[in-house]
């Protein structure tokens, strides 16, 4: 039995805001513990070398330095190391805490200094002398498979793994016999999530227990992972997160540094704090998006797609986290996107390089949309069909769902055509084309680009498939809802409170939530895969139903009414049709806790319940269309984004403001990824963008106002809610690339390589003009 929606679906102001606005948030660097010591890593300055002797004597001689630990000290402490979301049976890639034998990228942690404060720890780190015997690095993953050098000895040709297959004979003949066959190699540069809060952890070992404060998206995984790692019981560890400053995938699992902190805290029987600095974050927290694909589509004479294939290769760096091979399969599987594609194939290969390891980033498979949508625009131009028209001929329509794509992905409950048309109508596409023509006559270059995509949210794979909640109506009638959480900005506290208030008919001011503490909150997989909205709704729904039944029973008893006639609203119970018959939830709670004789016979005491929701669908499909217009200054290559429109369908929305905020954030990350951000290396494997002076994030002057359209198609599942957190980062890059390409189409420019810096745009124009 669900509650009437009074808060769900409305723009409730966030309950997280007051503390965050006033500076009372608790981020991991705000944690201060008695006797806490500070950690700084000594990191390799060279991309690849044999790791020789480490002389810490000068460092240890500094007053205030407590220890310098190396692989010999802590690596043997590892019992098991694997991620719950992957399971222990995947052919995981190497993940030593500290480097041993060889350093494999600039930034590879070699030693760990423990000192009274971070200033001293950095002084000491500078004094640690490490013997490096340089080896030729594998810097470019594109050629790594042909390299003589191996990043990891056990992986021939530097291949971490491969799935799928090259173009089959059948597909090849589809391509060969098609009226149009478009094959384009598309390359995307490395960039990274770059949350404003870097990684960090406080690990306190006392007695035989470890307490960890973490900047994380999943406190329960921090606990489970560390328990396995250290060979101690899960119940000997408490993991806490209160506020985490952005994750976007980079904080979804503990990485090597967190392993080191856990091992070191246990070994030293100490409380250790490690807060990553920004240079470390850009050099060693991982990179994403670095990949290319040989993308092919074939069309009949009318521009209808007859086949598609992508041969995808991704850079996984030296130490990817988590196992990258399986997640890359999504690139291949989703490549056909929301289009009618009768025949398709895919292959993905993950390749090591002596650079920062690949880590998850918002929509980790988004290359499928980059490759497909960019290719569709190129194909459209080559076939002299308007890119919008080409899409109209091929987008799957409402009446064609549910269906499986040619790779077996089961699409359902999605509206690609509807979001496409809505976004174009918000733009007034015809009007834009007229403006574009006028502008071109006046020597100005405007362009429009679109991207329509589908994304699987709320994947119900084992680790993510359930979510638990505990709800307590306290003796005074106030309500607390306990959830694993894992919010790194995704407003899960507000969502939880909205949902709970509605489920129990309670005033929102009477509900609070406690999240992110494994000692207190039930197990949950954390945030990731755009799962939290649906899963929290499920967990709250299941749990609240139990309590609601009890509330209603007690109220019926108190007011001598039938259970079916009881309504709950505004923290009160009412008898339907008799508005003066009412009792407060406070009164009901008093009975539940303290007055056994007023309870219905057989009803348990108290108003507290725990339940666990099991997701029923393998995934909940969401979709959106992004439309972007821009102007390109052909002299300087500068791109100005004019309008940006997102028509999204994430089903009914728990909180429209939160939905729009998620889309906006992801979109601007996508814009950054196309126009500004680049984790670059030189030919020797030295990172070139190690500070915010070189790694450029978009600022308020770089982004247009984002306009939203909403389509609401419920998914099967609680409330019909779908996930929405990742979509912006999937839809934006192709829309921006296509807009620039459209602006430059009169030069015959085809864009297949990123990033689109002003200098590169000028190169494209100059090359096309030759």
């Amino acid at each position, binding site marked *: 039995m669900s509650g009437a929606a009074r808060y769900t679906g409305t723009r409730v*102001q*966030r309950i*997280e*805001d*007051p*503390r*965050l*606005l*006033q*500076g*009372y*948030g*608790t*981020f991991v*660097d*705000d944690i201060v513990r008695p006797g806490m010591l500070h950690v700084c890593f000594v990191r390799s300055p060279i991309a690849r070398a044999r790791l020789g002797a480490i002389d810490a004597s000068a460092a240890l001689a500094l007053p205030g330095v407590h220890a310098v630990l190396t692989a010999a000290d802590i690596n043997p402490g590892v019992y098991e190391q694997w991620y719950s979301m992957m399971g222990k049976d995947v052919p995981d890639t190497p993940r030593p805490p500290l480097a041993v034998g060889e350093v494999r990228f600039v930034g590879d942690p070699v030693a760990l200094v423990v000192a009274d404060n971070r*200033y001293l720890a950095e002084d000491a780190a500078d004094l640690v002398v490490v013997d490096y015997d340089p080896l030729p690095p594998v810097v470019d993953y594109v050629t790594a498979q042909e390299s003589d050098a191996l990043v990891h000895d056990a992986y021939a040709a530097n291949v971490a793994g491969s799935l799928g297959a090259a173009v089959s004979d059948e597909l090849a003949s589809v391509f060969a016999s098609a009226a149009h066959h478009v094959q384009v190699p598309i390359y995307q540069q490395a960039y990274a*999530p*770059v*949350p*404003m*809060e*870097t990684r960090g952890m406080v690990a306190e070992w006392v007695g035989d227990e470890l307490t960890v404060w973490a900047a994380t998206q999943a406190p329960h995984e921090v606990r489970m992972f560390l328990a396995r790692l250290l060979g101690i019981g899960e119940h000997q560890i408490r993991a806490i997160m209160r*506020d*985490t*400053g*952005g994750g*976007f995938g980079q904080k979804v699992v503990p990485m090597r540094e967190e392993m080191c902190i856990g091992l070191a805290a246990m070994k030293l029987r100490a409380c250790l704090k490690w*807060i990553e*600095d*920004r240079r470390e974050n850009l050099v060693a927290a991982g990179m994403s998006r670095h990949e290319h694909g040989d993308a092919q589509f074939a069309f009949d004479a009318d521009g209808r797609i007859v086949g598609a294939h992508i041969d995808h290769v991704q850079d996984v760096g030296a130490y990817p986290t988590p196992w990258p091979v399986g997640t890359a399969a999504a690139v291949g599987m989703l490549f056909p996107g929301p289009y009618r594609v009768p025949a398709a194939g895919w292959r993905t290969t993950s390749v090591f390089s002596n650079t920062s390891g690949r880590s998850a980033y918002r929509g980790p498979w988004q290359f499928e949309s980059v490759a497909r949508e960019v290719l569709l625009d190129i194909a459209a131009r080559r076939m002299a069909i308007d890119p919008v028209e080409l899409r109209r001929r091929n987008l799957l329509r409402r009446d064609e769902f549910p269906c499986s794509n040619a790779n077996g992905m089961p699409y359902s409950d999605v509206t690609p055509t509807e979001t496409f048309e809505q976004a174009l109508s918000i733009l007034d596409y015809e009007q834009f084309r007229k403006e574009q023509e006028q502008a071109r006559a006046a020597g100005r270059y405007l362009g429009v680009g679109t991207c329509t995509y589908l994304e699987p949210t709320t994947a119900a794979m084992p680790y993510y498939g359930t979510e638990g909640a505990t709800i307590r109506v306290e003796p005074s009638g106030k309500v607390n809802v306990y959830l694993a959480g894992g919010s*790194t*900005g*995704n*407003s899960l506290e507000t969502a939880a409170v909205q949902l709970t208030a509605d489920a129990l008919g309670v005033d929102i001011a009477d509900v609070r939530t406690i999240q992110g503490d494994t000692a207190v909150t039930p197990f949950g997989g954390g945030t990731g895969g755009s799962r939290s909205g649906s899963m929290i709704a499920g967990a709250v729904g299941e749990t609240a139903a139990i309590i609601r039944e009890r509330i209603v029973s007690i109220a019926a008893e108190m007011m001598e009414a039938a259970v079916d006639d009881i309504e709950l609203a505004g923290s009160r119970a009412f008898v339907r049709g008799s508005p003066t018959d009412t009792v407060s939830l406070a009164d009901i709670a008093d009975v539940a806790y303290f007055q056994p004789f007023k309870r219905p016979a057989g009803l348990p005491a108290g108003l507290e319940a725990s339940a666990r929701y099991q997701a029923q669908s393998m995934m909940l499909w969401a979709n959106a269309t992004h439309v972007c217009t821009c102007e390109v200054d052909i002299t300087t290559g500068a791109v100005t984004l004019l309008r940006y429109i997102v028509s999204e369908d994430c089903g009914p929305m728990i909180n429209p*403001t*939160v939905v*729009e*905020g998620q889309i*906006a*954030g*992801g*979109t*601007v*990350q996508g814009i950054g990824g196309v126009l500004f951000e680049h984790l670059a290396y030189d030919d020797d494997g030295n990172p070139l963008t190690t*500070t*915010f*002076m070189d790694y450029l*994030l*978009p*600022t*308020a*002057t770089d*982004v247009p*106002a*984002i306009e939203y359209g909403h389509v609401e198609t419920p998914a099967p599942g609680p409330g019909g809610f779908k996930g929405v957190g990742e979509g*912006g980062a999937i839809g934006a890059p192709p829309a921006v690339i296509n807009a620039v390409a459209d602006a430059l189409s009169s030069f015959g420019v085809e864009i297949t390589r990123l990033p689109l810096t002003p200098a590169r745009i000028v190169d494209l124009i100059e090359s096309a003009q030759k």
Partner: protein
Amino acid sequence: MQREVEMTVNGTARRNTIEPRLTLADFLRERCGLTGTHLGCEHGVCGACTVLLDGEAVRSCLVFAVQADGREVTTIEGLSAPDGGLSQVQEAFRENHGLQCGFCTPGFVVSVTALLRDNPHPSDEQIRAGLSGNLCRCTGYQGIIAAVRAASDAEH
């Protein structure tokens, strides 16, 4: 070499003996227990550490605490309304979803408070330029720009 410093922080005198290299940001966070000022980059680009030094918005990671000797510092904690509630700028951020994770937020609130104090009715362009020294990764700036506009409109 240690030096004694005394400065006023949010109206309260704070005296401490410190190393000259201790940044003002770290002084506030560690010696004053005011952890609302955040470290996002420590090289003067992200703006998460913004505080008011004698009323001017500055990056506290680029000021040494010894340089603030005898000065007045206002941090995010000092901007709340006298009754402990939200200031007008803070309220505008809340009403316009100008924050998600909250890590960059104190820096923005301090910067915007200074901006609107000195230019109460900024144009759209001035708003964006004024915000360009603070980085946010969650909001895409949409809610922040709306918050500044709302706060400046509210001044009417």
